[in-house]
């Protein structure tokens, strides 16, 4: 997933990085085709060059040798709300048919079955980043027809579009999973199957999704990670396999 997500990043872009796979993807991109990627962390580290794999978005390694450290009021107002963040990464316990993401609760808010951490910066990233990339492992639990709670709005919320709701950003342009890549239908914003990993049966993907998953007329076959990408991920970026589950 990290390698597939990394390919979505263009050199020189300003990216709002989350911890875990997004961080791996960004550092892989920097090590390969996008050396000038500017990594921005919600903690206030800008242009970080982490010398070790950061274990939190506030890791001291993100500060040492960075281009700028600013307070969080500047992060959210002058960078994110200002429209300076070109790509935002999102992940979540639930991603639904319209790309809405839930990181708040499984079950009802007042009496949840599982209480998740909540928004953090995810609500405003989903609203303001010029575009977002969603990274999530495919499973029926994780891809319901409708999320229990909209933490991060996608393309259609209660029947209303992002434009109607006045959201500056374009929303999720790709949902990268461990088996396939979903993309919003240009007209409706509904997530459709855009491509599968080598050897993955589209019907297997459909069985992991809680709605009638439509597909693009022609499915892209997604390039597996190159040996070089694998080497960087496994030997350089995450040698202790903290985030690489394989």
């Amino acid at each position, binding site marked *: 997933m990290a390698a597939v997500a990394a390919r979505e990043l263009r050199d020189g872009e300003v990216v709002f990085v989350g911890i875990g796979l997004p961080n791996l993807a960004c550092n892989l991109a920097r090590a390969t085709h996008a050396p000038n990627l500017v990594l921005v962390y919600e903690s206030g580290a800008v242009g970080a060059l982490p010398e070790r794999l950061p274990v939190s978005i506030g890791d001291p390694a993100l500060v040492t040798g960075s281009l700028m450290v600013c307070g969080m009021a500047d992060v959210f107002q002058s960078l994110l709300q200002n429209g300076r963040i070109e790509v935002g990464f999102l992940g979540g316990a639930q991603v639904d048919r319209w790309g809405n993401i839930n990181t708040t609760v499984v079950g009802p808010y007042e009496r949840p079955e599982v209480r998740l951490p909540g928004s953090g910066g995810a609500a*405003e990233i989903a609203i303001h980043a010029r575009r977002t990339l969603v990274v999530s492992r495919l499973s029926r639990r994780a891809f319901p027809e409708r999320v229990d709670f909209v933490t991060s709005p996608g393309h259609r919320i209660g029947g209303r579009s992002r434009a109607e709701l006045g959201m500056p950003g374009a929303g999720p342009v790709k949902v990268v999973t461990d088996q396939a890549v979903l993309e919003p239908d240009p007209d409706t914003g509904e997530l459709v199957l855009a491509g599968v990993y080598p050897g993955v049966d589209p019907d297997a993907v459909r069985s992991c999704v809680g709605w009638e998953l439509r597909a693009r007329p022609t499915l892209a076959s997604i390039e597996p990670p190159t040996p070089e990408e694998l080497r960087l991920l496994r030997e350089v970026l995450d040698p202790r396999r903290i985030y690489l589950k394989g």
Partner: protein
Amino acid sequence: MSAGSKVATMRDAVAELVRDGDTVVIEGFTHLICFAAGHEIIRQRRRDLTLCRLTPDLIYDQMIAAGCARKLVFSWAGNPGAGSLHAFRRAVEGRGGPPLELEEYSHFGMVGRLSAGAARLPFWPMRNYMGTDLPTANPRIATVECPYTGERLAAVPALNPDVTIVHAQRADAEGNTQIWGLLGVQKEAAFASRRVIVVVEELVDQRVIRADPNRTIIPGFIVDAVVVEPWGAHPSYAQGYYDRDNEFYLGWERISRDLAALAAWLDTYVYDVQDRGEYVERLGGLERLRADTRVSAGVNYGF
């Protein structure tokens, strides 16, 4: 210019400045989280506190487990990079533990609340929350109409804590405080607060502060007490002093899952220790976390 010293022990500062029922902010985003103050508040058995932080982190999970909290105001309640805050989850999921009232925002919302508090404005405007379920979960998230465009923006209410506790690398005896590395929302939290406790790794002569005034985040005249508490932010970190104790964060997952283990941990490392020094001793010292040296060059303030 040197007003009276505000240096106090943690015990005295908490006894005097943190009261039952207070709205308390212990800020520091990943960096400089004042666990030393949280533990003293637990030891002094403060009750009915409204605990506010963007990321409750282990410190508020411990305070919730110890029964200090009536309410939690927050935006991200996980164990950063490690898992869940189980005392928090037990309370919210109704699986035992004291009940806990929640008031939930996003990070931007919490930053806006403290910015409004620091500016002594009743609200803070932002473009946010459209399409999310947060305003439904938290009716205090409102809207405000722009007098120029007529558009409706989101608004969050000011947060003005009774007491804010900020950990910093250094301050002088008057409380003029300098922080570098991640700044979080400490400045806003301190200015928003009725009372301010600054806890530092090092007490320095005022000449050190005056030699680099651009590094000062909090002026002494808004500070009520200065507590000198080396390693006071462990298991979080202090840039230039010590690294984050990730093993501790990972280990908390196991401890906080198990009520008995959690109670035992609080006994051993909070209730049964006199102060921070003894806490560090029981951990067998923390030298393994001591930071390496990457000293920046100075700049010229001459004219």
